[in-house]
C-alpha cells in the first residue's frame, strides 16, 4: 500500500489505508485521523427523475498520479499534518459503492478536518479523472462544476 493510488474496484478498502497510516514511523505522534469516503449516490446530476445506476471512471493515469502526489505534498507541509493518503477507483462503480478515499493523519482534529476538506476539493478539481453517470434512460459526463459534485 502506497500513500496514493488508482485502483480497480475491490483492490483497496478503507481498512488498508488506515493500516498504512498505522505503520508509519511517526504514527504515535498523531492525535487524529480524518477520513473521507466518496460513494456513488442514486440522485442524478440532471434533474431527470431517473435514478443513477452506476458511474464509470476514466483517468489519464500518469498525470493523475502526479497531481495526487503534488496535492499530498502540499497538504503535508501544513502545520500539524503528518500524512495524507488519496486513493481513487478507476472502474465501473455502482450506487452505494465507494470510489474515493482520502485520509489525513495529524496532530489535532482542527488540522486534519481542514486538510481533509481541502484535499477532497483539490482532488475533484485538479486530478485528471472523469466520470460518466449512467441512469436507466441516459448517460453523460459529469464535471466537477456540476451540482453537488
Amino acid at each position: 500500500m502506497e500513500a496514493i493510488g488508482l485502483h480497480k474496484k475491490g483492490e483497496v478498502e478503507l481498512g488498508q489505508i488506515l493500516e498504512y497510516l498505522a505503520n508509519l514511523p511517526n504514527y504515535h505522534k498523531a492525535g487524529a485521523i480524518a477520513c473521507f469516503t466518496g460513494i456513488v449516490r442514486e440522485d442524478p446530476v440532471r434533474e431527470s427523475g431517473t435514478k443513477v445506476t452506476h458511474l464509470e471512471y476514466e483517468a489519464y493515469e500518469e498525470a493523475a498520479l502526479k497531481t495526487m502526489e503534488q496535492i499530498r505534498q502540499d497538504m503535508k507541509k501544513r502545520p500539524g499534518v503528518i500524512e495524507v493518503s488519496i486513493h481513487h477507483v478507476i472502474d465501473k462503480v455502482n450506487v452505494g459503492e465507494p470510489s474515493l478515499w482520502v485520509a489525513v493523519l495529524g496532530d489535532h482534529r482542527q488540522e486534519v478536518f481542514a486538510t481533509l476538506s481541502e484535499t477532497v476539493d483539490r482532488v475533484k478539481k485538479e486530478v485528471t479523472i472523469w466520470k460518466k453517470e449512467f441512469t436507466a434512460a441516459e448517460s453523460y459526463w459529469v464535471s466537477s462544476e456540476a451540482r453537488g459534485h
Partner: protein
Amino acid sequence: MCFRHKSPNRSNKLSENLNASGLLASITVNVAYFAQARELAGTKEDEFVLNDPADMNHLLSEIMNAHPKLQGIRDVLSSLVNGRAVWENVSLNHGDRVTLFPPVGGG
C-alpha cells in the same frame, strides 16, 4: 485505433517541403483524447503531421477539421503538452505528446 492526419497545407512535392538545410519541414505530433473528447473524436489517439514551425493553435485547427464533433466542446477543452499544462499558444516540436480533455470530474 490511431489515425494519421496530414495537414492539407503540406505539399506532396518534396522540394516544397524542404527547409534551408534541405531537411523536410514537417513535424509529427501525437494526440491523446480522454473522456468526452475521446468519444467525440471517435478515437483514443491520433497522429498529426504538421508544417514546421507549428503551434497549438495550428494543431487544434487540424484536430477540429479532422473531428468536427469536438467543436461543441472546444471552448472547455484543456491540453497538456508532454505532461505539462498549457494555457496559451505554444510552439510544438517533432514527437510532442499532446493530451486533450474536457473539465475533470473525479470523486
